[in-house]
């Protein structure tokens, strides 16, 4: 059993890529990611002009993280040495680059290709510092940017997507037509993490990118959407925290995944932990490679016409021992669940089979049946 994957024609020892982020801001940081076992690393966004970063610029809470960090603080010239260094260590390096016109983007792409990177990711979905409308949002501009870069380099080009657009499918088709080798999704989402109500002040002084576990459901939908629309591979990004999340993304069509927030919050040990668990799970299930599970769950996504309406109501596997948990009771908006003689009782005539209580039941006593 092997965790290796073929991604855009590049052989990765495993599907875990460290995403473009403050974590990948220079060669030494990238080396740490490689030493921790990552299959590949995407550099922090490399642009023509370095912009100074504000302080503070990263804030996290239980659900996720907001950052207002702009791009790499290293110049294009400085990246030459950094990339040379990490390539010497045998790392697979993808350069995340940003420019506003096709010719400028192609120039930077050419440069980083000569520095020796293995692939390019167009960082055109950054939710802060780049205008209300994302660069990616205009189909014609997206096509021109992608096509010009694809035509001017030999290495594969991946385009990073944001859910802050109205038609993901059309944009995915556009980059496929323009010759991109892959799509990565999703970038951080425009956000304000929290407001300090005593000071009447947003926690960070401008809109930023939201990442971490809170965005995972949005990311899963985006990846599935893209995987169902185009044939080029997808790199899934968004709130990956454990091996199950990796499998979720892959089952929805991702070939690789990118991780950042969880590593920033918990440290690099996460990578090994995920890889060990992933291998164990695949082995237990009898899969020989990740290719076996890729896209497996896509068939479970149906249009409403295809979903049969069956007379499900909620049932109990056994009587609940209680422990003062009344989640099912409180969450039943149809008043179908009550307590009679200290026991949970379900009124079949009121239950509409919505399923909310089933997903909330920690003891997994509730299930739907007919």
């Amino acid at each position: 059993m092997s965790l290796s994957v073929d991604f855009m024609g590049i052989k990765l020892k495993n599907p875990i890529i460290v995403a473009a982020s403050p974590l990948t801001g220079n060669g030494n940081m990238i080396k740490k990611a490689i030493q921790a076992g990552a299959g590949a690393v995407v550099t922090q966004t490399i642009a023509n002009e370095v912009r100074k970063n504000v302080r503070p610029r990263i804030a996290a809470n239980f659900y996720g993280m907001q950052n207002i960090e702009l791009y790499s603080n290293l110049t294009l010239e400085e990246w030459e040495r950094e990339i040379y260094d990490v390539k010497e260590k045998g790392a697979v390096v993808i350069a995340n680059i940003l420019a506003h016109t096709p010719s400028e983007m192609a120039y930077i792409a050419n440069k980083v290709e000569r520095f020796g990177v293995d692939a390019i990711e167009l960082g055109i979905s950054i939710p802060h510092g780049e205008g209300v409308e994302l660069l990616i949002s205009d189909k014609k501009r997206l096509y021109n940017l992608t096509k010009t870069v694809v035509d001017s380099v030999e290495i594969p080009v991946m385009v990073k997507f944001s859910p802050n657009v109205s038609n993901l499918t059309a944009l995915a088709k556009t980059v496929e037509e323009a010759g991109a080798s892959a799509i990565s999704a999703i970038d951080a989402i425009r956000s304000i993490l929290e407001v300090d109500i005593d000071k009447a002040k947003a926690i960070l002084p401008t809109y930023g990118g939201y990442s971490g576990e809170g965005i995972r459901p949005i990311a899963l939908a985006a990846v599935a959407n893209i995987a169902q629309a185009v044939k080029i591979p997808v790199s899934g990004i968004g709130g990956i925290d454990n091996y199950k999340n990796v499998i979720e993304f892959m089952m929805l069509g991702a070939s690789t995944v990118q991780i950042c927030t969880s590593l920033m919050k918990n440290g690099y040990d996460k990578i090994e932990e995920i890889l060990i668990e992933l291998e164990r799970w695949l082995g237990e299930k009898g899969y020989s490679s990740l290719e076996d599970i890729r896209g497996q769950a896509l068939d479970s996504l149906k249009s409403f016409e295809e979903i049969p309406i069956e007379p499900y109501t909620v049932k109990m596997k056994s009587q609940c021992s209680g422990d003062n948990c009344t989640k099912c009771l409180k969450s039943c908006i149809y008043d179908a669940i009550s307590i009679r003689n200290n026991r949970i009782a379900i009124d079949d005539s009121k239950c509409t089979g919505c399923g909310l209580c089933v997903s909330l039941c920690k003891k997994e006593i509730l299930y739907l049946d007919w």
Partner: protein
Amino acid sequence: MTNIRKVSKLAGVSVATVSRVLNHPESVSEETRNRILKIMEEENYVPNSIARSLSTNKTNTIGLIIPNILDPLYPSITKGVEDVFFKKGYNILLSNTEYDAKREKDCIEMLLSKKVDGLIICSSILGREGFEIIMKQKVPFVLVGEYIDDSDINIVYTDYLSGAYMATKHLIKAGYKVIAHISGPMNRKVSKEKLEGYKKALLEAGYPYDEEYVIEGNNQIDGGHLALKKMIKKKGKPDAIFVANDLMALGTIEAIKALGYAVPKDIAIVGFDDIDVSSLIEPKLTTVTHPVYRMGLTAARLLLDYILDEEETCFKQKIFIQPMLKVRKSCGFDNRIEEIFS
């Protein structure tokens, strides 16, 4: 006096390695590099650049030709150029042309006779034949400024027409009806392009184009001042003015205030260039970013590519750097979100 041979002997490396430390430090391992640098310091070794020029046929100097160092655009370009070249061990020889074709030609000839390794020419007013002499000597060069069509010339350009169009359209969007223009000197192509952008936005929105609402200025602060006074005398007060550069916009705002009007309440202003002071004055100036620093960086990078890798010259590059609208307070547009994100 210590020479390169002595340094190499003391360090126990070849002369070529010492030379690489001087010319391509990134190609020498950090340990060796530091050892050699330490010996150089101890021995007070200073490389003889003239001797080096003779042996390498390179002078490690480049020529930078700009119209006028007092125009705040050109220090930014110069900084961009130097930020790239200094780290690579190059000096810059700077020349001002004062927008004079004869002087620009002389500057080129003088810099070529100094055997510069390459040339960057900003806002050139020479046509193609002006560059023939550079091409004949096979000296790499990059132009910075407006687009030219010649396929065998490298250029880093921005689009003044679309920048002016953006600025004028923004004033239309903000609801102003009578929108005037204070232009730059009309003998410059850039001024004509900005006027075209202004005109295009007006006509597209179904506004009349009135030549009398276009007053020519000199691109300096006093020019903006005089143009505003002339306009008020001739046509009365417009609702808004697109001023062709920020320097003139500063003069215009000053004149508006002196006449007892307020910006943007009585007359809204949008400038062009986004010079440093634009975000400091009151009201903060809405303007079009003229990405001069980035253009300087890009031109320098492009030139360096050609200097270091002569085979690369098979195709020339034209790199477009996008102008962008910076919404601030002087245009009276009270949509704060665009101010944050522009």
